[in-house]
């Protein structure tokens, strides 16, 4: 079981003509935690949406060795858990229980297994007994954690997160960083939070104007101030 992400020469343009990705190549090995950084509009979110087949561009995308095509989408979406930036987009059911059960229900699991998965996912994010809570009554930090739980319930091999710490107060942010540190999945996290990058991720990929401009050790990247500034970033 190889939990890898492989992107080969990916090109993508939006319908309005804007070229978002110009030949992106990257490879993430099993268990690796990688940060994806870059200025706004660089194509980070666009790239992430290709990894579970929501967007389809020219080039090849392989997750866990499976090429992302029309007929493999179901399998891909079980292996790749994508957590979006705005938790309100991800929590669309009346209760927390139903949101987290959504994934397992569509996987066709038995009711007993579904309830187990929900309980385990809530425990993994530290929100036990939140099953009956209503989504719009939760705080921002709780919503973000429930959003992660909705994806964990599918037991993905790869976790992809888009700006997980955006908008969180320091305590919630610390809780989330600890959670990401403890989760065993292969991870690709798009973020602006350079302090989290230097704390959690050994490897960082920098993307700018649709291309990968740097891919290597985080510490090496953070010591090159000129390079960082050139691509709209700052060392913590």
């Amino acid at each position, binding site marked *: 079981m190889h939990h890898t992400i492989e992107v080969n020469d990916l090109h993508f343009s939006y319908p309005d003509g804007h070229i978002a990705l110009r030949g992106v190549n990257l490879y993430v090995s099993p268990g690796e935690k990688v940060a994806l950084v870059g200025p706004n509009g660089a194509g980070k979110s666009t790239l992430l*949406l290709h990894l*579970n087949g929501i967007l389809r561009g020219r080039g090849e995308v392989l997750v866990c060795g499976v090429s992302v095509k029309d007929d493999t989408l179901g399998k891909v979406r079980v292996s790749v858990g994508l957590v979006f930036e705005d938790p309100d*987009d991800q929590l669309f059911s009346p209760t927390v229980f139903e949101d987290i059960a959504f994934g397992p229900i569509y996987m066709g699991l038995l009711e007993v297994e579904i309830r187990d998965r929900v309980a385990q996912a809530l425990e993994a994010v530290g929100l036990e007994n939140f099953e009956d809570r209503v989504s*719009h009554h939760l705080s921002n930090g709780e919503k973000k954690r429930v959003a992660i739980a909705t*994806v964990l319930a599918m037991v993905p091999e790869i976790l992809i997160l888009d700006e997980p710490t955006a908008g969180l107060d320091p305590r919630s942010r610390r809780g989330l960083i600890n959670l990401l540190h403890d989760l065993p999945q292969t991870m690709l996290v798009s973020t602006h939070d350079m302090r989290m990058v230097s704390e959690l991720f050994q490897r960082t990929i920098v993307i700018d104007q649709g291309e990968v401009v740097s891919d290597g050790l985080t510490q090496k990247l953070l010591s090159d101030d000129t390079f960082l500034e050139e691509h709209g970033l700052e060392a913590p």
Partner: protein
Amino acid sequence: MHFDIADQYRHRLSVVHLLDPRVKVVATFSFILTVSLTPTGVWWAFGCFLVLILAVAWLTRLGPMFAVRRSFVALPFVLAALAVPFTTPGSILFRIPGLGWTISEPGVIRFISILARSWLAVQAAVLLTATTRFPDLLWALGVLRFPRLLVATIGFMYRYLFVLADEALRMLRARSARSAHVPKSPRPPIGWQGRVAGMMVGSLFLRALERSERVYAAMLSRGYDGHIRTLDRFRMMTLDWVALAVVVMVLATPLVVALIQ
């Protein structure tokens, strides 16, 4: 900043709160149907149903006047029936001076029957929403063969109404912050203000549309395949069956008697 206008649920430890939501939905619909089928002018039947609804209200521990107070929200809808006393033929009770309109006795009886039916039906609906959590209510409707797509749509509306309300509030605040008024200069024309309001509504619509696309992407990411599926959340217990049987009998008896007479 949160709005909670749609959340009618009031938590109590009562026998009614504990009932299966399917029983409550069926009971409420049966009550409304029975009350609607009760013939005009059979006051003793309406009296029976009033006693029934007050008894249920008492059982819910929400206070006997809870449903009565909230039922006045139905009053404006009764205006639709305002023409009835004037248009029903029969013995004339009263003639309006100057207009020549007549109020007939059968008309008054019909009008009061309509009032009674609406009042009783609304009280039943109020008790239903006060004793059943909204998600459970939706689930019950779906299981009782309401169109699944409709139930899902209502669910999404309930979920995102508050998100939209918050966005609208932020837009209004932003507009107020830029609505300075320098004394002695003329106020902007009403046509322009109307256009701005219209553009805000359009902008809100676009944001809702784009959010719906993101929500759809989130659903796809978790395996959505186009079919709406839910879990069985409740199991019918003995209490539920007993309650259902009691309700059906208590409703059917006066109705049958009233129809036979």
